[in-house]
Every structure is written in structure tokens, then in C-alpha cells.
């Protein structure tokens, strides 16, 4: 077995196949590229639209709050509003590690590691509780 950098042989931590590691690395890389791509484009359009507007205004009125409602976000995306795309970029950035947990869940169950699969499911469940229960409760 060799490492992807070609620097020398790599001994696998545990017994998961190399394909699982490749899949996880790809999930992280693709998620990051998509999120940063959306954020870069959206911030460039926002600055291009009003380069001399006051930064204090942008700090005091967080544009993301308005787009937390999925319907408003959908309408903003359809209208090409940069603030909506900034929100989408943040969602993509936050979702990337969550998708990585789901990938881990799938990989563990697929390779017969039930205990680790259950553990990954529990981590995913806690993340969902945080996103859909704890967050809205403290709002």
C-alpha cells in the first residue's frame, strides 16, 4: 500500500479499505470548493454592487438572518440576490462535515462495523438536534 503523496508505504489505521478514505477526502474537498466558490462569487457581486457602502451597516444588520427562512432563501436565490448566495455558501460550509459524518455512517455499516455505524448515527443525530432543535430554541 502506498500513500497518495507517494512518499512511502502507509499502514491503514484499522481495517477500513482505502476507498473509504478516498471517499471521505473527496467529500471534504468537494464541499470546501463548492462552499468557497459560492462565497467568493457572492461577496464579489455584493462588493461590486455597493463598494462604498458602510461596513458598519453590514456588521449591524446580518443579511443571513433574513434568509434563514427556506422560502425567503429560495426566492432570494431565484432572484440572484448576493446575500441569499452568501447564506447558501455558509450552509454549504456547515453541511460539509455533516455530510462527512453521513459518509462515515454508510461506510461503517457497509463494511460490517455495526458498533461504529451506530456511533456515527448517534453523532449525526446530535448534529441534527443541534441544527433543528437547539438552534431554533435559543434564537
Amino acid at each position, binding site marked *: 500500500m502506498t*500513500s*497518495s*503523496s507517494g512518499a*512511502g508505504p*502507509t*499502514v*491503514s*489505521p*484499522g481495517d477500513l479499505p482505502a476507498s473509504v*478514505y478516498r471517499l*471521505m*477526502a473527496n467529500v*471534504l*474537498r468537494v*464541499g*470546501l470548493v463548492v*462552499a468557497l466558490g459560492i*462565497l*467568493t462569487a*457572492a*461577496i464579489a457581486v455584493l*462588493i461590486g454592487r455597493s*463598494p*462604498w457602502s*458602510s*461596513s458598519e451597516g*453590514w*456588521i449591524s444588520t*446580518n*443579511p*443571513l438572518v433574513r434568509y*434563514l427562512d427556506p422560502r425567503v432563501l429560495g426566492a432570494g436565490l431565484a432572484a440572484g440576490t448576493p*446575500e441569499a448566495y452568501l*447564506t447558501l455558501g*455558509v450552509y454549504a*460550509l*456547515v*453541511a*460539509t*462535515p*455533516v455530510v*462527512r*459524518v453521513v459518509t*462515515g455512517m454508510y461506510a*461503517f455499516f457497509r463494511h460490517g*462495523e455495526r*458498533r*461504529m455505524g451506530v*456511533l456515527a448515527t448517534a*453523532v449525526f443525530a*446530535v*448534529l441534527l*438536534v*443541534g*441544527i433543528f432543535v*437547539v*438552534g*431554533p430554541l*435559543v*434564537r
Partner: protein
Amino acid sequence: MDLLAFALLLGLTGIFAGLVGSLTGLGGAVVAIPVLVVAFGVPFPEAAGAGLLTVLATSSTSGAAYVRDRLSDLRIGMFLEIATVPGALVGAVGTVFLVHARLEDALLIALGAVLLALVPGTIARNRQRTSTVPAEADHLSRQFGLRGAYYDEARKEPIAYAAARTRPALGVGFVAGAVSGMFGIGGGVFKVLALERYLRLPMKVATATSNFMIGVTGAAGASVLMVAGYVNPVLGAPLALGTALGAAGGSRLLPTLRNRTVRWLFVPVLAVLGVEVILRGLGLP
């Protein structure tokens, strides 16, 4: 300040934070958050929200590389996440409650204390040596198969390891998550502590696995702060982009620099930022 200049300065701050964070191994948010508070006058909760976005960006960057090279231990990372994720939720909820209770200054003082507490550990880090003898696995470690091996390039040999003392490591993991969620930092230092000192993993595996875990912990904290209205993408986007660039540059620069040079160059930056944040929290100029 106008938006264009503000975004450019945030981007430059992100590059500097990413560079320092990558070279010291502390992550970009530890530098970016105090700079946002002290130099830009950003309120602490918004700075913490932006910090978590930088944590997510840098974790995915370095995490992907470590996973690809199979240095991150997926099992052990997932095992500790069962403690770090609830910890991050508790920390983020704590921040929201403290801000609502108008105790933002107390959070700033606590953040400054955390920054100052990181200084001795950062200096001492390069003096640590890794044992080549695997620790004796405990009950939970055996149940979940928390063992593995990696090929050490410096020693030119495979190093086997097994996780020990899993229960206290879960406790430290919870604290690491709480610190991350509360202050918007990655909390990598605390995660490495849980992985290296308690689970007794080799330093390289501990660092790689910590990087792998930081993103999930950050996502938990960010989900709470986002809904509470403290994740502002106008702040976070240029900062996260700059940090990702700085971290990539730092990882290329690192092999050409001596560890000691790096520490002595940047540890004072951390100490000054810690003192500045505490002074800000105390309402002193």
C-alpha cells in the same frame, strides 16, 4: 470604513491568521477572532461566528489531506465526536445565553485567558516525544476497535497504536467541544490533548485526527450561532477565504522553517492578543 476596504482588510487578516494558525498548529480562528474584536471593533458573538466559518474552511482543507494520506484515524475521530459535538452545542448555547445576559465582557476575558493558557503548551509542543510502544487498550477501546498503525516517514517504520483511557478522553473531548462552541475557535489544542495524553496516540495521528474532528465540532457550534444570528457571511466569507489561503501557504512554508523559530516568532502574537482581549473585556484601553 467602506465595504471594499473592509473586505480586503478582512481577507488580509484571514491570510495572516491562516498562516500563523497553520505554522503554530493552533488554527486560524485563534488569531482571527481577537483581531476582529480588537482591531475591527466587531462584537464578540459575531467574531465567534466568523471564527467558526474559518474553522470549517481550514478543517476541510487540512482534514481532506490527512484523510487522503490515511493519517487521520476515522474510528477514533468518530468515537471522540460523540463527546465533542454535544460539548460544542453546550458551549454555543452558553455564549448565546451570556450575550443575552449582557455578559459579553466576561466572555472576552475568558477568551483572553484561553489564549494566554495556550502559550506555554504551544512553546512546549515541539519538545514532546512520541513513544513507539502502543498503550494498553481499555474496555471501550477494544469494543470499538480503536487501534491502528501508520507509516512514520521520519523513522521509516510502521508505528502501531491503541487507544487507552477512553473515558477521561471523552471528558476532555467534551470540554474541547464546549471551548470551540463558546469561543468560535477550533479547540484543536484540547482535542490533541485528549488524543495524545489520554488516548496515548502518536503525535502525528493525534494532530491529523484532531484536524479531521474540528470541522464536525465547528459545524455543531455554527448551527446554533447561525440561527441565533451571530454568523454574518459578510464578515465570515472574506475571512474564511483568506484563512484557507493563509493555511495553504503556511503548510508549504512549514517544512522550510525550524519549529523553534516558528514558535518564538508567533507565540508573542498570541500573548499580545490575549492581553488585548482581556483589557477590552475589562473596559480598559
